[in-house]
């Protein structure tokens, strides 16, 4: 049982509170989903519950939090560890040992548990998560998903009654993310552990949660049973700019058009039941002319193979042409070769066999620096980009590297384009996540590359920022440039891409218009597409991808 009373917290030196007047009561065995925009106070709330606030992060505190009867202001995290466990975002940042056993033992050692008990707890924790096979492995050999499971096991070994997870899936691919979330559900169902899950993407988790708490600006803006919050507080949630699952967005749109829907559906199945009840039969299939694109190719891959020095084959026999003005999404499971493929486009990797030509130039015969003039590459984590003291210098870095003459005019144009002019003399790393992303993008777009590659650009991004970014990319492609996205985010692809290339085990499984590819690929179909599969006999086309398209047909 967690009791939060009038809790307010200011980080030291901050003028605005991170948490303000929070009043919550979380009962035993609840599955609570906490969501909200970044900077909304989600993470601070968790850190307050296990005492990291204020024992680790100094600051000003008012109010009180009680966890299983213990006041968190009087008890530091180490005394709360056996009551509240906490799993963090990035598994890399929470593992402290080199092998699995020692990792799980760490917390127990800190509490001076005897060796036999530690051994028993390790076994039990691994069994609970179904990963006994990993027991004798070294951590660096494990995948991100496996590491995150070890992190959960290491917390679970302390037998907490409450398990908090701070965006535990944001660094994982969809498959591992599903697994980790399924584990939390199982812990809740079978062991009765209270789960407090922080997520800003709701589509995968919403159906598991009994309760939904929305935080914005450090305050609770909505709190209640998941379905109720989604029905009654929908406008508030939408205004905050959260990523609401398409099924729920659809339901809301239908409601506002006068359809009578009682129960808010959370999953595709529930969505289908809802649609059956409200849809009249028979819709006429709308003719939708597919614009055939026949653009001049700027990227040509011929029978490309890539074999890494350790011997694993990452790409096999890839032949691919991409034209001017195309917006192409490359999708596929983890380790399917997506990133390896795009790294060939700017010469970071060279073909083991076959050829890659960019703008008619064989990448084998040039350097990455030379290719950087025509190929811009934005990597996932903006922090990897940022090295300068000011935003302006950061953007000028590539321009200087490439020896552009008119640096200052390009710089000011780019600053304006990305609305960064007011921050130009600030330290880039002290900006917010979204702003950093913009600086990283601006530093690449400043050279106006004919080809722009983005690796997982929308991961961890809020709905609103995501749409700003994608609108920009659409426009950029519209100017005759080629944009290539490597992504897991099929909902975004469904809305914005022209063409989709699906990779699997280093081979191209499918390549075509997004409609063709996304409506055939089970795992990679957007929610709405999966939803409409049950309604083909109603006359609803089975290649609908987005809420807007479906609404257009239903009217």
């Amino acid at each position, binding site marked *: 049982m967690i009791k939060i009373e009038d809790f307010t917290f200011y980080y030291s030196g901050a003028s605005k509170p991170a948490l303000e007047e929070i009043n919550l009561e979380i009962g035993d065995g609840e599955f609570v989903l906490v969501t909200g925009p970044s900077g909304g106070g989600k993470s601070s709330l968790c*850190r307050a519950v296990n005492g990291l606030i204020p*024992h*680790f992060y100094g600051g000003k505190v008012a109010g009180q939090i009680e966890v299983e009867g213990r006041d968190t202001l009087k008890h*530091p*995290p*180490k*005394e709360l*560890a056996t009551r509240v466990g*906490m799993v*963090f975002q*990035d598994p*890399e*940042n*929470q*593992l*402290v*040992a*080199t*092998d699995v*056993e*020692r990792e799980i033992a*760490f*917390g*127990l*050692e*800190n*509490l*001076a*548990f*005897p*060796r036999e008990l*530690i*051994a028993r707890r*390790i076994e039990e924790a691994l069994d609970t998560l179904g990963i006994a096979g990993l027991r004798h492995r070294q951590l*660096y050999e494990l995948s991100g998903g496996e590491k995150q499971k070890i992190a959960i096991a*290491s*917390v679970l070994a302390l037998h907490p009654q409450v398990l908090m997870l701070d965006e535990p899936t944001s660094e994982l691919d969809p498959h591992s993310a599903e697994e980790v979330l399924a584990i939390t559900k199982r812990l809740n169902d079978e062991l009765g552990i209270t789960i407090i899950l922080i997520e800003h993407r709701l589509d995968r988790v919403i159906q598991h949660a009994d309760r939904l708490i929305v935080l914005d600006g450090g305050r609770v803006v909505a709190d209640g049973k998941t379905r109720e919050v989604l029905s009654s507080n929908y406008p508030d949630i939408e205004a905050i700019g959260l990523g609401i699952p398409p099924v729920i967005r659809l339901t809301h749109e239908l409601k506002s058009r006068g359809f009578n829907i009682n129960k808010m559906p959370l999953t595709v199945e529930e969505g289908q039941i809802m649609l059956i009840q409200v849809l009249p039969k028979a819709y006429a299939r709308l003719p939708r002319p597919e614009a055939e694109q026949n653009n001049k190719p700027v990227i040509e891959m011929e029978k490309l193979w890539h074999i890494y020095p350790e011997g694993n084959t990452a790409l096999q026999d890839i032949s691919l042409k991409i034209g001017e003005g195309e917006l192409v999404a490359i999708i596929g499971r983890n380790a399917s070769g997506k990133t390896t493929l795009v790294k060939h486009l700017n010469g*970071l990797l060279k073909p083991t066999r076959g050829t890659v030509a960019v703008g008619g130039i064989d990448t084998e015969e040039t350097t*990455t*620096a030379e290719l*950087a*003039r025509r*190929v*811009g*590459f934005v*990597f996932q*984590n903006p*922090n*990897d*980009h*940022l*090295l300068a003291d000011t935003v302006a210098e950061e953007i000028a*870095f*590539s321009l200087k*590297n*490439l020896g552009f003459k008119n640096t200052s005019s390009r710089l000011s144009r780019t600053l304006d384009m990305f609305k960064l002019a007011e921050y130009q003399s600030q330290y880039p*790393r002290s900006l917010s996540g979204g702003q950093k992303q913009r600086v990283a993008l601006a*530093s*690449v777009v400043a*050279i106006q590359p004919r080809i722009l590659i983005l690796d997982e650009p929308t991961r961890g991004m809020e709905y609103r920022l995501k749409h700003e970014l994608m609108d920009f990319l659409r426009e950029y492609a519209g100017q005759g440039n080629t944009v290539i996205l490597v992504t897991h985010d099929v909902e975004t692809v469904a809305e914005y891409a022209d063409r989709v290339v699906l990779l699997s085990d280093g081979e191209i499984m499918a390549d075509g218009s997004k409609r063709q590819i996304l409506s055939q690929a089970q795992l990679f179909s957007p929610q709405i597409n999966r939803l409409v599969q049950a309604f083909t006999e109603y006359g609803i086309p089975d290649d609908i991808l987005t809420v807007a398209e479906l609404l257009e047909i239903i009217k």
Partner: protein
Amino acid sequence: MINFRYRLKGTPVHALNPFAKLAWVASIFVLSLLFNHPVYLLLLFLSTLPLVITAQIWRQWVSLMKFTLYLCLAIIIINALVSSHGTHLLWQAPFQLPLVGTPAITLEAIFFGAGMCLRLLAIISAFALLTFTVHPDDIMLAMLKMKLPYKSVLAISLSTRFIPTLIEDAARISDVQRSRGLELDRGRLTQRLKSRMAIIIPLLSNSLDRTVQVAEAMEARAFGSGQKRSFYKEIALKKPDIPALIMGLIPLLLGIFIWWRGMGDYQYYPALARLGFTGLEGTLLALLILSLCLMLPLGLARKRIEVD
């Protein structure tokens, strides 16, 4: 990915208890420094070879020895140049050198240099076993067992844990910056350093951010100051390990005894002494080398137990 020099191989040497190996390497190290008799040093060097061969680290050992020979050359030259204690003059330079004066090379000095080379070879050969057959984690467990403070060992162990992460980070950042037109290997020295810094600066900043999160995660798992803690893993000293541990220490004790009795000392200057031994010294030396070599059969026995 860069790897530890340590390689897990199922050889009898790898099967030996880390403490036994540490004790054995320490024995060779200390004894090599105590004795200066060339025959002793040669035998100490030779007694490392069976283990090197059995551990299948021959190739790494050879490349290490090549590096060592360079050091040997320096040892011989410097000793030859500076020592004026010898009596058998081989060559007198017709010129003067600053610091050295008129170099006069004597037979004794050359011999002394050669003896010292044997000392260096013995020590480096023994340390090769440590580098290639003892896992870094075991070295840290041994440090804990020797009652070194936990927090320092934890810092070292955290550091080995961060290494794969950092190497990945560095590779990724290097890709990012190269994609932004950075050229690592072009230009003058300062230019090259600058391009290296384009990788080191983001790496440093990212890592500092990681630091906070790791610390947080440690606290969330009950890590705190000034508390008693238990240790789940330690280097298990099982029954079959005991003889090996003892065998690691016997040569040390025996060697110290020999040294204490004034043996193993060789007169290089002013004129080379005879190389012969008394019967007692010969016996003791033979025992010493035998005790060093016994580590191998113990490893074989340990390996057999492991297989069963």
